[in-house]
């Protein structure tokens, strides 16, 4: 479906980004894997992509640093000359409540999670010029719901989702579709650090009350990203598609069936 397309997925050395990179590769796209600290993991993702019969390359860049982000896109331009798909997935942050958030942690989080999407989309749009393209940002339910220590990340995701709407309209004349995919809890390294007691063995694990009856997997998120990168989603613009197994629909988790009144 995506044969011959070139895709860049930020933060694809592990977790959800890795699943997205592999899924796009399975659909036939050549994939550029971006990472920050874990070179070995990134190279493993690239090897796994190549095993699917498509091209992979690895670029180290802190997407929160505009200079490094620019260098990454320069490398993409030099080696591929174009880009069809840009998935802004990399995210970072430290657990802090609003009252403990200092300028440094706020800046770090916003730079990596929100500003990188703006600057990345600008560069991606340039490389998609004249051929159309797909841009997808990965966001989280924390943009609307409140979780302990998630303040800066949640706010950065709200920014991201608003930006997705603006970019969807502004890039539409260039034939570029922009959307976001928002997950609830996904058991990756960072997901587990925020969930606390969310393991399979935990009786009271919150996700056990999820209507769909199981946790969201990285592959669940990747599947929706692949759909948004395909031709059938052409009329979906500026949306945040929630992948949570219905979790956010039943916040009260009521057990009764209701009386006749």
């Amino acid at each position, binding site marked *: 479906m995506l044969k011959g397309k070139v895709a860049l997925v930020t933060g694809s050395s592990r977790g959800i980004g890795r699943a997205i990179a592999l899924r796009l590769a399975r659909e036939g796209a050549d994939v550029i894997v971006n990472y920050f*600290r*874990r*070179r070995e993991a990134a190279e493993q993702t690239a090897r796994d992509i190549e095993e699917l019969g498509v091209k992979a390359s690895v670029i180290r860049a*802190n997407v929160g640093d505009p200079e490094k982000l620019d260098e990454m896109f320069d490398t993409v331009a030099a080696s591929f000359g174009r880009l069809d798909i840009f998935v802004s997935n990399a995210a970072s942050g*430290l657990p802090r409540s609003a009252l403990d958030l200092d300028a*440094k*942690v706020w800046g*770090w989080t916003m730079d990596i999670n929100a500003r990188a999407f703006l600057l990345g989309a600008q560069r991606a749009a340039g490389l998609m010029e004249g051929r159309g393209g797909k841009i997808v940002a990965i966001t989280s339910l924390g943009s609307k719901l409140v979780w302990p220590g998630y303040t800066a990340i949640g706010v950065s995701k709200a920014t991201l989702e608003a930006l997705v709407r603006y970019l969807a309209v502004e890039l539409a004349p260039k034939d570029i579709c922009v959307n976001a995919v928002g997950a609830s809890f996904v058991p990756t390294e960072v997901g587990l650090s925020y969930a606390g007691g969310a393991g399979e063995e935990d009786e009271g694990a919150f996700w056990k009350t999820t209507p769909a009856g199981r946790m969201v997997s990285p592959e669940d998120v990747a599947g929706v990203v692949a759909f948004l990168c395909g031709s059938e989603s052409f009329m979906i613009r500026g949306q945040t598609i929630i992948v949570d197994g219905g979790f956010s629909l039943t916040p009260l988790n009521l057990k009764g069936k209701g009386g006749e009144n």
Partner: protein
Amino acid sequence: MSAAEETIKDIIVKIVHCDRKILTPESTFQDMKADSLDMVQVLVALEDEFGIEIPDEEAQKFKNFGDFVSFVEARVAEKK
């Protein structure tokens, strides 16, 4: 004092905003008042400056400024 040591001091002072005078081989990250964000930024700046790699697993073992310097010097020597 090696040239590498001076450069490492420059980088730490710039990122952590600590007093250069406190940087002795024994000074710890607590002495520098460096938090985990400072640490990542220092590591990345050192990697870029010296063209080496400092895996997080290695960096976690550093106890003081001296450990930083010896690791960087060893990696730079290996490269030559």
